[in-house]
């Protein structure tokens, strides 16, 4: 299909404190129906969105951290994390959730589509995108 566009969702806000992270996630979930090539990028406080071990039982909020783990089922092919932001926020890839992806027809599988990249690589991914949605 020639009209497939590359969509990039750029996430730069922490989860739970504001509505940005959840709104972005909802748009990705809804937009998945449109058969575009969808990637997500996590920069600045956005890297906190992927921190595993979230427990909202004491704060009476919806825990949407597990929802990121189904994004592969929604056709999201790449989730890029900014190495610089990750380090500045005291985190490593081990602190982040893993998201599996599988092509249901070819049965091609990727165990984890969460990928930590440096600034140059991220700039390239942004440059290649047809549309960048910022949250």
């Amino acid at each position, binding site marked *: 299909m020639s009209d497939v566009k590359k969509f990039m969702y750029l996430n730069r806000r922490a989860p*739970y404190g504001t509505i940005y992270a959840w709104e972005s996630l909802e748009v990705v979930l809804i937009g998945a129906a449109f058969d575009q090539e969808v990637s997500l990028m996590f920069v600045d*406080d956005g890297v906190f969105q992927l921190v595993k071990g979230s427990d909202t039982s004491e704060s009476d909020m919806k825990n949407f951290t597990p929802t990121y783990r189904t994004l592969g089922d929604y056709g999201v092919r790449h989730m890029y994390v900014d190495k610089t932001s990750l380090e500045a926020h*005291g985190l490593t890839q081990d602190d982040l959730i893993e998201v599996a992806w599988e092509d249901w027809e070819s049965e091609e599988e990727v165990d984890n589509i969460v990928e930590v990249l440096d600034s140059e690589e991220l700039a390239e991914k942004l440059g290649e995108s047809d549309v960048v949605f910022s949250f």
Partner: protein
Amino acid sequence: MADLYTVNKSPFEKNSLENAIRFSGEGASVLLIEDGVYGAMAGTAVSDLVASATGRKFHVLRADLKARGISEDRLIDGVELVDYAGFVDLVVSHDKVQAWL
């Protein structure tokens, strides 16, 4: 008696924590809530804000820390974990509350 400063913004995104510390006097308490809890994490680019502040007592709300998946062993030394009842105790044991948003 001193004031209680609450900070609810990420220290990576806003200078609320930095300025709350700057304006708080010796003996004041700072309570980190919502996205403010990230200020209590050790080993980050902004850990020094809390780690190097002397004469102030730092607290962090457990429910907000847990919601963000940040475990207690990541806290800067000396930061005290409080629950909602502890939040209330802090409010009543200080002159007044200043919310730094």
